[in-house]
């Protein structure tokens, strides 16, 4: 079965919407990924023997932001995304070992150090923002807007406003 590339976002988008519906129907679970990051981070810190159990963030919701909530649906969902992408890329022969994205290299060069510095700063900003907003493109974007949440629509719009403005500064005028 050969599907033309420009139809794929629509076809696999529709399948993802169907998958979301089935997940809600059978398990009551909407998609979301981002809370898994602070949970995992708390576990890493704990592994180094730092006790942060008294910090408010880790006491709210009966410890739902800590490692104690693992394993849960969302952790397995996140791991699944990695497995699914691996299987899919192997089957379609698109699995590619790549250290730096080509668009990044064209603009910022091939220094791994530069990418690490930007990634740590950018990744931190992204995760702080996403937890503040209350969801990521999956949690707010897909799941939240599907529920017609006003919060999710605003968050999704702001993701793109912030993203487009920042991309303009980072990649000013440059071609792909």
């Amino acid at each position, binding site marked *: 079965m050969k599907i033309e590339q420009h139809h*794929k*976002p629509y076809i*696999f*988008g*529709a399948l993802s*919407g169907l998958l979301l*519906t089935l997940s*809600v*129907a059978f398990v009551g679970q909407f998609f979301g990924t981002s809370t*898994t*990051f602070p949970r*995992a*981070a708390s576990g890493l810190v704990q592994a180094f023997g730092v006790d942060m159990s008294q910090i*408010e*963030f880790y006491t709210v919701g009966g410890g739902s932001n800590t490692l104690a909530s693992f394993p849960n*649906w969302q952790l*397995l*969902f*996140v791991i*699944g*995304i990695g*497995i*699914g*992408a691996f299987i*899919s890329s192997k089957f*379609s022969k698109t699995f*590619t*070992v790549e250290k730096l994205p*080509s668009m990044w290299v064209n603009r910022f060069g091939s220094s791994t150090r530069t*990418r690490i510095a*930007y*990634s*740590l700063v*950018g990744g931190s*900003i*992204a*995760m*702080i*923002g996403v937890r*503040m*907003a209350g*969801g*990521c*493109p999956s949690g707010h*974007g897909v*799941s*939240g*807007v599907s*529920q*017609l949440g006003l*919060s*999710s629509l605003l968050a999704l719009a*702001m993701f*793109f406003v*912030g993203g*487009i*403005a*920042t*991309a303009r500064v*980072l990649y000013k005028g440059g071609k792909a």
Partner: protein
Amino acid sequence: MILVFGLITGTLFGIFLQQAEAIRFERQVGAMRLIDMTIVKYMLTTIVVGAIGVYFLRDMGLVEFAPRAFSLGLQVIGGLLFGAGWAIIGYCPGTSIGALGEGRIGAIWPILGMLLGGLIYAFLYPAVQQYIAPIGALGRVSIADVLGVSHWVVIAVMVVGSVALFRFFERKGL
């Protein structure tokens, strides 16, 4: 059992994301540079089909849900911050894991950055709750509640708007 469902659902989602190429750095940053609308097509299609699906289930009395709480302060400030970070790293939390799965080993750096951010947020959390969360807080409201119309009216508008946008993208070759 719920864990097995999580793994199966995640795996299928990962396959769909990979097939749509929505997990690629170039597709995500391409959308923010307004040169490649792949992820917008993918997301809007998922949202529209998902909205029809979950509201059908709710109208049948099979499920209950309430949208996430609205706070002008949290969604505007948090959303803009996320957008800025997203443009820098080129992945969102879910797609970073997917990118790693399809061999983009460089995605490990954004993942580490996001783990670091998750830790930093723990310390910011009390101030965020105290000063930012109350700004324009409306509770768990939906667009249909605010407009005072049926959810099917909102969904119909979303369908028409998305199709119009898709036609525009295809005409422009985006």
